[in-house]
């Protein structure tokens, strides 16, 4: 099958013998399979992130050139200001983001768990329909979903307009105005599928006979929940929470649309500084806080789950 003596392109196509030689040793096989992605990730993931860490520790002079001297000026700038510590833009934004992300996660958990349990138990046709309804917004563009919420909220949004028309209220309800609560609703809706699917996968693997055994032994529903179901599905709960908390922390589009200038989450803050001022030092330093938070969240999570549980990789 060796046609390397033929004309032009044919000689450059590897022959069967060549291919087999390429895969001959285990080392080669490993190199060919793991290698390309490794190089790609090293160049386009590890390097940029490392660079960002570095940038957070240097400063930029007048002509936008980097001054390669280590400095903590960027970090200091984050906390600068005349107002009390908790009122400074960065700190306020950071704490608010943590709070919103936490509430969103809890809300997702509380709403998704019963549904996931039902789905895991019922299966069949109901399952398909429900999954379709859940996946539909999930596969729709994030931007479209955020936009839909934008239309719903607000003094003249769909919710208030409908309520006014039906006559339940006489003036737009503040709750449905843009702001923190709107953002929480939007984020919960956005990340609900992640929580639901993770919980479902976990509950699907639950051995229901254990639950039955507990009931047979006399445990009440809540006791069964607390002592049997929750501990067994804890990895799923942790993973799901991680998949909601982390993106919610760095969210940009949803707070931008549903906050309408009244709320500034950390994602928005960073985006502003970079896209308008290209303040790379400030932006990098601020981003480091998020990155470190995420790392901490993961370390905590990994006490309860192994990386296999996270996604079967």
């Amino acid at each position, binding site marked *: 099958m060796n046609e390397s003596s033929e004309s032009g392109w044919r000689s450059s196509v590897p022959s*069967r013998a060549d291919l087999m030689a390429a895969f001959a040793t285990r080392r080669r096989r490993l190199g060919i399979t*793991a290698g390309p992605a490794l190089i790609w990730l090293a160049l386009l993931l590890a390097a*940029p992130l490392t660079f960002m860490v570095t940038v957070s520790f240097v400063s930029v002079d007048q002509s936008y050139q980097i001054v390669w001297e280590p400095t903590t000026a960027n970090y200091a700038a984050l906390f600068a200001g005349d107002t009390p510590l908790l009122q400074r833009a960065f700190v306020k934004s950071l704490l608010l983001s943590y709070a919103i992300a936490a509430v969103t996660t809890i809300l997702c958990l509380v709403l998704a768990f019963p*549904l996931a349990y039902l789905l895991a138990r019922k299966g069949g046709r109901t399952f398909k329909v429900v999954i379709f309804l859940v996946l539909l*917004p999930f596969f729709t563009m994030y*931007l479209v979903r955020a936009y839909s919420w934008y239309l719903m909220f607000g003094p003249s949004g769909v919710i208030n307009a409908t309520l006014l028309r039906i006559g339940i209220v006489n003036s737009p309800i503040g709750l449905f105005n843009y702001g923190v609560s709107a953002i929480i609703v939007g984020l919960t809706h956005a990340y609900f599928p992640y929580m639901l699917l993770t919980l479902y996968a976990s509950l699907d693997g639950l051995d229901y006979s254990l639950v039955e055994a507990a009931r047979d032994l006399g445990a009440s529903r809540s006791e069964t929940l607390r002592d049997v179901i929750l501990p067994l599905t804890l990895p799923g709960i942790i993973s799901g929470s991680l998949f909601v908390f982390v993106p919610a922390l760095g969210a940009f*589009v949803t707070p931008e649309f549903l906050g309408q200038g009244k709320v500034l989450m950390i994602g928005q803050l960073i985006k502003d500084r970079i896209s308008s001022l290209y303040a790379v030092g400030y932006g*990098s330093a601020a981003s480091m806080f*998020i990155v470190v938070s995420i790392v901490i969240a993961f370390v905590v999570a990994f006490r309860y789950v192994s990386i296999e549980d996270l996604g079967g990789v």
Partner: protein
Amino acid sequence: MMVLSFAVNSSTLFPFEGITLAHYGATFADSGLMSSLATSMAVATVSAIIATVLGVLASMALARYEFPYRELYRTLGILPMIIPGVIFGIAMLIYFRTLLGVVPGFWTIVLTHSVYGLPFVLLIVTSRMYTFDESLEEAARDLGADPVETFVDVTFPVLAPAIGAGFLFAWIRSFEDFIRAFFVRGTANVLTTSMFSMIKYGTAPKMNAISTFIVFVVAVLLAVAMNAGDVTSYVADGDGE
């Protein structure tokens, strides 16, 4: 939540009180919008191809071989999916612009999205490979097939659906991404960034039209996919991201 997802649909229809197709007409005639749609599709396709090729190879390494730093490799592979878009976008922008001196544009988006799509391919393909029955391969080898034949005739056909699903996921994630593309796009425009400007500067009818259109297309595709293939297992087992 389900009720709300229905509500999501109707809210984009509300401004259409008087049924008219004029908005749709205007939307599709908007050449700027259409060209950013084309750009989105091109970016998604190229980046998904890169992500799939790299991801399938890497999955084979992860699923089959023990090697040092395997856990670290796996974590690195999943990382792009976990990092918030703002952080990743900024890191890439600074990297391209300040360190490499590259002008952001079409190719920077492609590169960024190829990294972003990689974890999805990894998750789906590795989870399929874990359930792959290697005795099939051994049987083929016993019957006299060489490694190349074994791969082409046994391994690949079994993996093909998973590879396809991985490609699709990567494609969709690239297509719908906004924040990462926003940072690294330079002057290029993808559909999401055009839509974002539309929202900011308030051309509502077109936004409604394109949004509803997208929802409709997605709904149809999803229904077809769910009936034709085993989408649910990939999503529910492979940790739908």
